[in-house]
């Protein structure tokens, strides 16, 4: 994965760079918006990490300039983390938004998702999802494992749909919360964990091998 990191805080930038390189990804770090736009027009990247508060040209302006051009997906990484900031960022064309401080694992998972979605581009998700012997009929809202129907609540279905759409990839708890409940919802309790626990009971308890794995302190992966 070729990642362009646009971040003026040298310490954060260095840390992300080192971690990405350490995980086997190619990373270019740059400190201002103008230079980032120049670099994007010259080199190919799979995904961009964009800070909002930048010298010369801020993150939102960079997004505005990118609008309508062919460009890799952009994840905005910012200390501006109010719901309105997130909504503004996503409306301006960001593909994902992550508030600071952040876990590197969370960032990496999100970047991988973006890069993969970008790579697949138009590969339509289709009406059927299959992970091992777990089958989901999206249109009919039916789930079976080894032919045995599994009764799920709306939320469990939604969570499973997210996990199955990203089979084999880690999905963080925050991502599940954002996708199943929406941005702007901030539960005071571990809602996601509780629902995933219930979901696991339904899809894995009576079957072997278990499909839903917990990635410690990060999230979950299916398959």
């Amino acid at each position: 994965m070729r990642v362009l990191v646009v971040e003026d805080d040298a310490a954060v930038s260095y840390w992300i760079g080192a971690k990405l390189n350490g995980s086997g990804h190619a990373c270019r770090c740059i400190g201002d918006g103008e230079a980032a736009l120049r670099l994007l027009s010259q080199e190919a990247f799979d995904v961009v990490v964009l800070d909002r508060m930048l010298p010369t040209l801020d993150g939102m302006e960079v997004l505005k300039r990118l609008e309508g051009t062919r460009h890799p997906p952009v994840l905005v990484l910012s200390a501006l983390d109010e719901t309105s900031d997130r909504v503004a960022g996503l409306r301006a064309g960001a593909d994902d938004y992550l508030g600071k401080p952040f876990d590197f694992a969370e960032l990496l998972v999100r970047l991988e998702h973006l890069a993969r979605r970008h790579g697949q581009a138009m590969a339509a998700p289709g009406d059927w999802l299959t992970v091992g012997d777990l089958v989901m009929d999206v249109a009919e809202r039916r789930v079976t494992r080894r032919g045995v129907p599994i009764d799920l609540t709306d939320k469990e279905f939604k969570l499973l749909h997210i996990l199955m759409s990203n089979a084999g990839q880690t999905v963080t708890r925050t991502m599940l919360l954002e996708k199943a409940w929406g941005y702007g919802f901030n539960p005071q309790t571990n809602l996601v964990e509780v629902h995933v626990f219930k979901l696991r009971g339904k899809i894995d308890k009576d079957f072997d091998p278990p499909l839903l794995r917990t990635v410690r302190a990060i999230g979950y992966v299916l398959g």
Partner: protein
Amino acid sequence: MSWDKGKGRWRAGGRIRTLLDTRSFRQTMTVGAVFVVVTAAAVLWSRTLLVGLVKDHVADLLARDSETQRQMGDFTDAPALAAELRRRAHLEPETARKRLVIDGGGRVLYGEAGNAARLLAALGCGPSGPQDCGTGRIDGRGEGGTVQGLVVPLADGGRLINAYDIQPMLNQMQAVPLAVGIGVVVFLLTSVSFGVYFSSGTLRRVGAITEALASYTGGDRSRRIAVGPADDEFASLGREINRTLDRVNRLVEEVSSVSGSIAHELRTPLTHLHNRLATIAENCADDHLRRELEEGIEETRRIQHLFRAIMRLGEIETGRCAMTMEPLGAAPLLEEIRESYLPLAEEGGVVLTVAADPALRIRGDRTLLFQAVANLVDNALKYAGGGGAIVLTAGVRDGWEELCVADRGRGLAPGQRALAVQRFFRLDPSGTVPGYGLGLSIVRAIATLHGGALLLEDNGPGLRAVIRLGRHP
């Protein structure tokens, strides 16, 4: 017209009532009423004066007339006087003046016999003759009108009755109060019209200002009052309000940018701390130390969480959050919340149910209301759990749309209710119950943003937390 806060527009129902309640209308009407009373008193008084004047004048006339006749020797005896009057009749045609000469036996010697009876009756003389009338000035009213006369005794026992029919004069005077009355009615109608015109103008301008301010408080920060071309007190009030709103906006922006900067300044070192701990933990061979480090990482996460909650509260309290007010089904909203919290409720052995009319639609921002009710359910599970029951209801009470979370726990003492909505208030100060003490503050801010309030009521036993929204249409 009256301002309907729930709907955010003027209601036409109480239009006339509101118009009558305006100050300018009441002022106009008070001045009008005082004017009418004073005019009516003046008219009555002047009429009395005029009638008195006319009567005095006629009495004077009659007295002078009688004196002239007396000096001319007319009063010697009745037949001679009658003859003399007949001789002069062509010189003084009898119109308003009525004269009668009656001899001692009561026979009418001069004057129309037909008229005589009426005149005598009008003057109040009895049927037996003018003797009953006495002498001097007499006034009377009868079918012939109002007459005023003087009875003069003659030397031979007869009498001369000299009278004037003053009715035509009085009739002419009737026109005075009539004319004044018409004038007053015209004046009254004019002043009512002016009152209505100026009052509805006032109402319109005040309405525009009220509407603009309501829209501003509702979150439309760009809303200003249309000042209009007229340079009157409303225009200067509007300009002053607009200046105030500009200033409020500047302050809000300043506060927002300051809090943004604080967030940035604090989050950056927090990010560094988090990253360092994560790097050390990764490379740490000592299991015990690594667990400690992971605790530290978890702590930074909690700080971040708290930070987000504070920022969110600020965002909602200042109305800076993205908000979409729309009609939405109350029952599906509560059902989704129930579904979200059902696993947690089951874990705690709590029965979580929804009781809401499936047809009820309320106005609000879905995300914010979801957050608010979720916080209340969260609190109910934390403080009233342990085999209890929590009921989520939606309804209309006293015209207000309400969402309510009722539990059967230990509830809140009346003294605690006001404290409970304060920031960082914890019902359980020991810290064993997770949370930051911001949940209810956020609920209250959301209710306020919807034009309502958060009410904490006794559920006997337990707590009924009611999110009051706007007025139900």
